[in-house]
């Protein structure tokens, strides 16, 4: 336990000194730190090279690698404050997470349903807020009609959304419209089944 906390302290000091003096006296080590991911449990990172392999699977765990081919060290926990000090410049601004919206359409048409139209000003607003924003619109259909017909209908729906947003003054830096036709139903139905919830466009603002 004592060894572990000493190692943690050394690592924290190294990180801190690294930020200030660009490196500890010994050959500079690389460091990898696992961070919490919002409300989700942290994922997993495997750090491996010719010398060995280590797995990080808890928030604030870190591993040091002394150099190419140098054996990755044992995972050690770090204090969040030490990490913030060492990585300050890169952590300066946490990005807003991408936003997703669903819009619904009339049967066999690229006309957006009135209730979904009410969402358009809000989408246009977040595009402005996230400037430069990337807008992606994926059109979908229900399972009535041929694959080809629905692919085209999905494209028309996606394009209709992009145009309506543009007419509301939204000016994303990049726009991507595409169609999945009837390939990715939201509500699973047999083929040739009318289903309002499948006549939709998925909008992502990044």
């Amino acid at each position: 336990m004592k060894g572990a906390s000493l190692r943690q302290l050394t690592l924290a000091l190294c990180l801190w000194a690294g930020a200030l003096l660009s490196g500890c006296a010994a050959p500079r080590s690389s460091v990898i730190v696992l961070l919490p991911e919002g409300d989700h449990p942290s994922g997993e990172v495997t750090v491996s090279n010719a010398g060995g392999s280590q797995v990080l699977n808890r928030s604030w765990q870190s591993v040091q690698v002394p150099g190419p081919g140098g054996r990755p060290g044992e995972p050690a926990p770090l204090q969040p404050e030490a990490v913030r000090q060492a990585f300050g410049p890169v952590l300066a601004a946490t990005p807003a997470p991408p936003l997703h919206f669903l819009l619904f359409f009339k049967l066999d048409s690229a006309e957006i349903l009135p209730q979904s139209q009410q969402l358009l000003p809000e989408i246009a607003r977040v595009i402005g807020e996230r400037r430069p924003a990337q807008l992606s619109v994926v059109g979908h259909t229900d399972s009535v009609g041929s694959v080809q017909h629905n692919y085209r209908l999905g494209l028309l729906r996606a394009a209709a959304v992009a145009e309506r947003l543009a007419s509301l003054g939204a000016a994303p830096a990049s726009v991507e419209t595409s169609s999945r036709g009837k390939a990715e139903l939201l509500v699973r139905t047999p083929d040739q089944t009318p289903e309002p919830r499948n006549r939709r466009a998925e909008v992502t603002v990044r």
Partner: protein
Amino acid sequence: MMRITVFMLCTLLSLVSAALGQDGRTIGLVKTVSGEASVLRDGRRAAALPGFGLELGDLLATGAGGTLRVILRDDTVLSLGPSSQVRLEQFVFEPAQGNLGMVLRVTRGLIEYLSGRISKLSPGSVRIETPVATLGIRGTHLLARIEP
């Protein structure tokens, strides 16, 4: 007749999309920049300005006081601290076809990586290559300081 009309409409709309800035090769976007930051593509260096479209193979680089934050098409967020270099080496995001994969090559510097949908849909298909080790990613958020 109906089919022809629909076809013409599609053509027209795809032209509209093109005019709106759609580009099949764009895999991401520069979100924020401070200090010196650039993108190297085909041996040419361009200043990394907010809104700059990123393509496969681009090398992102920051100067001594620079930082750069980019967002990729699958919602991956990548930040570079000062004196850092990252190449967008592989990016495959075709969820409908089940084709997913990403490789980032970090040559040196400070990076923050927040995984996007590629990593969530296909854990294990994302790698960060560095001169000292390979990082295998399973849906996560990490920081790395890479000293070559």
